[in-house]
């Protein structure tokens, strides 16, 4: 089962320049390193190494993956084919006239996203959701500055929000004002009233929120925020609940990001890359990152496209245009599903969450939820529950968050699971619910690795094979 590190298979030191004696280096020694020592392996050996590594990973094609707020959808295979088209592989410094295809695809995707979110203008540049949040924060700052409101230094974030909201606001230099939930798990309007002030730059909201609850008072919230001159930011992580049924733009949000690796099924890739396009209302469009894409109006019959810098652009948040290949996949997904497919995805995502919740023995304190729900492991430790679920061959939910639910099991099955799979998943929940703490603490037992010691990993970090080797030397 164990697969050696590449470095345990081979280490070859290549001497460089005069040092190696072959004198073959085209550079003087003082501009080069002395040597390079890395594994030197053949293609068949590498094929086996990475095949073996892949076998030690649970992916979406392995089974259900109900991580709350992560929207682990099936990733359609054909989107890989379109991203692999040779015509997609172009250099970012190409002249605009030589990449009309790329610009057209971006233009169309901007348009699609605008319609889906009810936004007037979209940038595709942010390479991830958090980068999208940061763009939103920077756009808000630039807007307020432009309006002569540069003093606004607070961003309000509900306690139950994604951690990136806090971090992105902080990276933008804002003080973060944390907002408690009301008893129903939603924004506490009184607390909001108290938090809002002339210093409020923005309120960041997820809707439905991380409990899966729709913020019913969204219109009032928007009005309150706007009344103090603040902006309303929509965190798109949970957009898969609403496709075709509600749009952030219609709810009063001024700026939002889209997680295409969640809502639009681009693969998560073991952590990334994703993409976090940002949509804004007209008023904020001049502040979006540069450049954006527009039609150049050169020809009526065959439209051409060009890049342009928004008037008051915040500049760039990525060296070029973000994660282009991911954007191609997202475009293909949206073009494949169309209106009805997108709406159906949300409908079934919500149906699945409700059905699954109805089948499990754990309590779900807050409802009516939409595409995800947060159950409570009660007396059990939620993290242990997750480890034990691994033994039943399924991926567990997100655990211990949001903290509003004790021992939270945050569960989002998405629309891609059928009834049989949901029943199997529920059976895994319920089997674990009936087990004792000892069993849970000993879990997992049937996985490639058994429970891994996180504490010692952090206490004495060994972050490279070099560190492991020098440790070996010490012994």
């Amino acid at each position, binding site marked *: 089962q164990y697969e050696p590190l590449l470095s345990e298979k081979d280490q070859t030191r290549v001497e460089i320049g005069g040092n190696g004696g072959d004198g073959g280096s085209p550079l003087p020694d003082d501009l080069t390193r002395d040597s390079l020592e890395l594994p030197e392996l053949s293609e068949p050996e590498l094929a086996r190494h990475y095949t073996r*590594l892949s076998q030690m990973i649970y992916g979406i094609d392995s089974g259900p993956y109900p991580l709350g707020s992560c929207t682990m959808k099936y990733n359609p295979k054909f989107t890989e084919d379109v991203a692999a088209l040779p015509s997609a592989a172009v250099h970012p410094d190409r002249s605009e006239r030589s990449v009309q295809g790329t610009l057209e695809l971006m233009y169309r995707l901007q348009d699609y996203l605008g319609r889906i979110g009810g936004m007037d203008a979209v940038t595709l540049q942010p390479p991830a959701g958090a980068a999208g949040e940061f763009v939103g924060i920077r756009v808000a700052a630039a807007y307020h500055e432009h309006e002569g409101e540069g003093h606004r230094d607070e961003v309000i974030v509900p306690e139950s929000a994604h951690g990136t909201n806090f971090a992105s606001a902080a990276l933008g230099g804002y003080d973060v004002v944390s907002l408690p939930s009301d008893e129903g798990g939603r924004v506490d309007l009184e607390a909001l009233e108290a938090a809002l002030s002339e210093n409020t730059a923005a309120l960041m909201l997820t809707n439905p929120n991380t409990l899966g609850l729709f913020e019913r008072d969204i219109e009032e919230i928007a009005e309150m925020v706007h009344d103090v001159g603040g902006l309303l930011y929509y965190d798109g992580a949970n957009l898969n609940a609403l496709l075709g049924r509600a749009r952030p733009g219609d709810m009063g949000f001024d700026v939002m990001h889209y997680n295409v690796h969640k809502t639009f099924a681009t693969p998560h890739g073991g952590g990334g890359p994703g993409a976090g396009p940002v949509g804004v209302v007209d008023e904020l469009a001049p502040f979006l990152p540069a450049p954006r894409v527009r039609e150049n109006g050169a020809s009526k019959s065959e439209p051409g496209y060009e890049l342009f810098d928004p008037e008051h652009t915040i500049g760039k948040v990525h060296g070029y245009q973000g994660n282009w290949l991911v954007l191609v996949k997202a475009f293909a997904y949206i073009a494949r599903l169309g209106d009805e497919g997108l709406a159906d995805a949300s409908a079934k995502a919500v149906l699945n969450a409700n059905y699954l919740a109805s089948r499990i023995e754990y309590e779900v304190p807050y409802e009516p939820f939409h595409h995800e729900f947060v159950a409570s492991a009660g007396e059990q430790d939620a993290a242990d529950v997750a480890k034990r679920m691994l033994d039943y061959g399924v991926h567990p939910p997100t655990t211990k968050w949001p903290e509003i639910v004790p021992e939270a099991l945050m569960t989002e099955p998405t629309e891609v699971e059928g009834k049989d799979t949901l029943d199997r998943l529920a059976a895994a929940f319920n089997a674990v619910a009936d087990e004792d703490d000892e069993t849970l603490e000993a879990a997992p037992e049937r996985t490639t690795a058994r429970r891994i010691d996180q504490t010692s990993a952090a206490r004495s970090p060994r972050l490279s094979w070099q560190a492991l080797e020098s440790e070996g030397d010490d012994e």
Partner: protein
Amino acid sequence: MHGSDATGSPYAPHTDDERARMLEAVGAGSVDDLFDIPDAVEFDGEFGIDARSERETRRLVRTILGRNDDLTELLGRGHYGYYVPSLVDHLADRSEFLTSYTQYQPEISQGFLQALFEYQSLLVELTGLEVANCSMYDAATALGEAATLAERVRDTSGHRVLVPDLLLEGRRSTLENYVAGTDLAVDTYPTDDANVDLAALEELIDEECVMVYAENPTVRGTIEEGLESIGELAAERDALFALGTDPVALSLLQRPADVGADVVVGDASVLGLPTSYGMGLGLFATTEDYLRQVPGRLVGASEDATDRRAFTLTLQTREQHIRRERATSNICTNQAWVALRTAMHAAYLGPSGMVDLAERGVTRAEDLAERLDDLVGATAPVHDRHHLREFVIRVDQPAPAIADDLEKRGFAVHVVGDHELQVCVAGVPDERIDPFVAAFREVIR
């Protein structure tokens, strides 16, 4: 084939019967009943997006992207079009790699964690620094993160970040955004042949400075000759020395640890990705001293309950999902799968292949410069330095017109002055060099 001809999502497996039974189980009459959206904000319009079959969708994208011209790109600057071996595509596309989530459940993610651990180790060898993270987005954002790291780790009240005057606009602008929420300000130091002007830098660098950033090779393809001096200057002033580079350059050029670099950033995707309209992989390495201030994810070795070696994400208390507004960065989704591809490509090359690739970047640039220099109306390289992959050409005719003419003949190059072009040999197939020289000869007449 549920739904592939129907109007719903082709990726939702529900039969009508199943849907009915599920609704019954939850006690709802219809799916609509499950939504709790106030009427006032319900959307009853249409996006106006037509559904398409898989075949039609593929054709649509192919048609759109078919409008890109098929050019030989001599553009470089961190995106080289090195040939990515088929092995990388086939193995990275295995769905276990491609479709898995961040490894928060390490027991069922050992394969990806090990691959990322190997990626980190690759960077440790290349940089000589002890710590490399799992990825930032790209070179520009990695530079931004380096600046905020510098702010966190420097005790001084300083607020200046020094960057070269020729810094690419995308990097500079991104850096400006990253420091917009801090007390930092970005200042510029002058260069000479794109190399650092050491005398000028020495004057500019003071106790206000928290970080000096330099690149090797430089944006003009020259090899930086003053790295050690920059390192010493920075160390004297207690500023961080951040170096921008990439894995191929690192295979041959001075090792960052040997010149006093505290942080190394850059685009590691020069290996592993084709030119992808700027999509990249932010390389980020630093010294052990700053370990607990590193942005992004780190994979560490540990043991499982049976005392076998196992890997896990570690030091997560630096990260946003735990530390929130006090995290070292807001990054969550990163470029893990690109890091996998880069590690695979590097492993395919091996140390001899990597050194060879870098050395050919020197010799092929020399050879091309010599051939262009032989032409009437062109001088190359303009800078009397060693070059890696890229160099500047002086032309008698106006450079923009020449670049346009070259593009019409199928070659993309940079205009870097009224009479200066910049070209890059890396990733350009051997058999495209002769046609390029021929085209160049034609267009400079």
